[in-house]
């Protein structure tokens, strides 16, 4: 599936912290355009609402950027967010060249309900949401759709199982994309005794989770 190209109107901007802050007050996001054949980076701003629309779609983010009467085919490469307000602070656009391959992350979307969930009450975990690939601009996929309907409990799909013709996948083929975990034993807390047992049992799990998180964060 080809990704949708969003039309984005940009206005040139002046450089500097004060100018950028003024733009942000006007709900515009300072941005930059660069690429392998762009001699001098172009600085401009885009409307925050337009950028949010692009960010809210789980697809590869391609645009037709209109700046100073010229049109550029671009990829939204990177967006910086404010740590507290979560508003976009700055955006990087990459100018696509037809004959130059580029590396980018493609979103992974799960399709269907897994057999293990339907029949055994398993839980779907998707540790990988994006896959790093290297492609020519004309072959950029919108997303990788993975059908999980046949997956049973304790079964998983890895990067190597992806059907990606004409796309060079840079991630490790053994990396797990989705796994169906067995249902947790027991149900809701019924009595005080059960509750205590349950809390005790979960303690080990909590530390595991934290360790996983810390490891991945590094």
């Amino acid at each position, binding site marked *: 599936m080809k990704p949708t190209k969003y039309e984005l109107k940009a206005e040139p901007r002046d450089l500097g912290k004060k100018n950028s802050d003024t733009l942000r007050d006007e709900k515009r996001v300072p941005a930059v355009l660069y690429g392998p054949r762009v001699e001098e980076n172009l600085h401009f701003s885009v409307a925050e609402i337009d950028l949010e629309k692009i960010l809210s779609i789980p697809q590869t983010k391609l645009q037709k950027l209109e700046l100073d009467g010229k049109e550029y085919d671009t990829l939204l490469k990177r967006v910086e967010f404010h740590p507290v307000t979560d508003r976009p602070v700055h955006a990087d656009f990459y100018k696509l060249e037809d004959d130059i391959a580029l590396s980018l992350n493609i979103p992974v979307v799960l399709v269907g309900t897994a057999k293990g969930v339907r029949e055994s009450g398993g839980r779907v975990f998707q540790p990988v949401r994006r896959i790093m690939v290297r492609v020519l601009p004309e072959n950029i996929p919108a997303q990788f759709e993975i059908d999980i309907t046949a997956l049973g409990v304790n079964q998983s799909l890895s990067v190597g199982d992806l059907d990606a013709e004409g796309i060079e996948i840079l991630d490790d083929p053994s990396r797990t994309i989705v796994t169906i975990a067995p249902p947790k034993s027991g149900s809701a807390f019924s009595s005080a005794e059960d509750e205590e047992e349950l809390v005790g049992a*979960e303690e080990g799990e909590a530390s595991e989770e934290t360790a996983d998180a810390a490891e991945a964060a590094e």
Partner: protein
Amino acid sequence: MLEPKRIHRRRVHRDKLRGNANRGHQLAFGSFGLKALEPKFITSRQIEACRVAISRSLQREGKTFIRIFPDRPITSKPAETRMGKGKGTLDHFIAVVKPGRIMFEIAGVTEEKAKEALRRASHKLPIKTKFIKRRDIG
């Protein structure tokens, strides 16, 4: 309760809690999260209380990720003790939380369930928080 397995020093200086979080301010594992809006030391007891609140609310569904770890030792002096005679003994551990820090994440549940679980968790914390979700979720 979470605490380090071993520590380098039992008595360390306290952080000054200036500025916003430079890292750990975006969702990394789950689809929903609880973000701190104020700076504060969060104790391991408070983290544990949040974890229990979340797990009881989710009824063993989904997966919870704790994104902060109480690695800082805090000392205290015994009750009714005169000042002096050296620094107190190790009392508990805290995590330094700055505005923007995502403290908890949840994956594999609906938005309503995640919101309710994190709302309950937020009541166990001494700071203002906000519920956040991944941008590409409707």
